[in-house]
């Protein structure tokens, strides 16, 4: 095993462990903080894959915006930030079966794949993923249409939020 693979396994364990803590901890704020650990672990995975832009955007969007929003929402809605009810509902066995089936299916599909122990080829030193991503986002024969549609959608959401919050006199 190379150092990178050991590092990957450690990060994977941290992601899985913190994701488990998100759903098992009783304190809502702690759940949000564990979620941040999970999201940060995903950012580290991106960094391992040489996707520096995605790694940084993951931190900016998910930790800087979404997780902060979660924490604000929890603080503003709950007076007592501790959930004392039962942590499982009646449908838990059905969900467990579906999760096991999904895992089993993935395992069965990937059983014959022999790429697990391969390490990624080194990128050339001149490789600039950010520039390529930028060109792909604005080039007409790549993703300019989805990119613009997504921008318009976000703008519509922004206008909608302003409309709801607007105080008519």
């Amino acid at each position, binding site marked *: 095993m190379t150092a990178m693979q050991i590092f990957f396994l450690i990060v994977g364990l941290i992601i899985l462990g913190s994701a488990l803590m998100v759903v098992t901890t009783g304190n809502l704020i702690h759940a949000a903080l564990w979620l941040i650990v999970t999201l940060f672990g995903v950012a580290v995975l991106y960094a391992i894959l040489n996707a520096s832009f995605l790694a940084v955007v993951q931190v900016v969007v998910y930790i*800087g915006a979404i997780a*902060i929003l979660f924490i604000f929402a929890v603080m503003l809605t709950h007076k007592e930030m501790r959930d004392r009810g039962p942590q499982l509902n009646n449908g838990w066995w059905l969900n467990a079966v579906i999760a096991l089936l999904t895992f089993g299916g993935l395992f069965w599909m990937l059983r014959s794949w022999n790429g697990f122990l391969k390490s990624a080829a080194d990128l050339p030193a001149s490789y600039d993923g950010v520039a390529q991503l930028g060109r792909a986002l604005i080039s007409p024969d790549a993703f300019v249409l989805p990119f613009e549609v997504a921008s318009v959608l976000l703008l519509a959401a922004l206008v909608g939020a302003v409309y709801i919050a607007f105080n008519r006199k």
Partner: protein
Amino acid sequence: MNFWFDPVNFIAHWLTGLLTGWGLAPWLAGAIIQLIGVVVLISLMMVFDIFLVWVERKVVARFQDRLGPNRVGPFGIFQPFADIIKLIIKEDITPDGADRVVYNLAPILSLMSVLLLWAIVPLAPVIFGVDLNVGALYIVAAGSIGTLSIIMAAWASNNKYALIGAFRQVAVLVSFEIPMIATMLIPTILAGSMGMNEIVQGQQNVWYVVLAPLAALIFMIAAIAELGRSPFDLNEAESEIVAGFHIEYTGMKFGLFYAGELLHAFTFGGFWAILFLGGYRFFGLENLGPLVAVVILFAKAMFGYWVIMWVRYTVMRIRIDQMLAFNWKFLTPVAFVLLMLTALMNTLLRGTPVAVYICGMLLTNVLLGWIIVEILRGYSRGEREKIEGAAPAAATAHR
């Protein structure tokens, strides 16, 4: 390679040779040297941080017509060490009902978010932590960890004043991030890269403060707001919420917040210098050697830090609604218009002689600034008339 010309890389090469000579694998030797580099850089910044306490106190004293610390050592320069001893031997109080782990983690994250920024600072052409090609975004990402630490500190202290302070501070941080990102994109457009090294390289002919003076101004305003310093220091208000989010912290834990704030101010001064004032460039003086370049960058960062202090200690603080209105209704639209205009002019003027390019960019900024001032004048005239009512005829004659 000459030791006196470039000591940092000389020592790194020598250590690599030594470690591989001992039979270590090259990647392991590289990792150890990286680790040593990180520890040395962070230690130097922390020691420098101690010095910043003295600088801050001396400068504020001058602004307020006092002497400042002047008893311990020459010019009171050893005062911070006395302060550190005081902070360390103070009682470490954890309030009742505090969330212990989160409470202790928050000050560490706060200082960490600042130290992380130094990874991408190009101290000299050959001395930098990492040349990240998404440097500008990395600054924002590290800042979001700082935001997180504020919320964690406030929530874990189990104190409602801390929570109110954090809500205010986070509202400021989240909203002033937007003009800051928009103005950081302007050097990105001019240099054609988000990497700090390439932005500094791009300022070979002319500093970006000449090409984009408005962007430099807006970045400075947004940086002061991000730092939570006066006139945007709403997290701290003695008469309402006392010390804001770090109200419950004592001893060295408070010291970490304080040190983080000072180093953050200096760091943003440094990024202002890198993005707009040419980084380590000073009319060819940086070619004398990497150490000279480091000194130049630190001098420029000190200048940025001094501007931040100058604003802090002379401008009155404003209310939160004024501050948010200032950001959303003024700074953000201006930053976006400036961004679009800079992108447009940069494309139009590409290929023209350097003098034409510089004059065109400067003229665009001056014109936009003039239009903004005219709009503001019209707006404030309207507001005044709304409050005072129609001015009497005698008063209008005087105008």
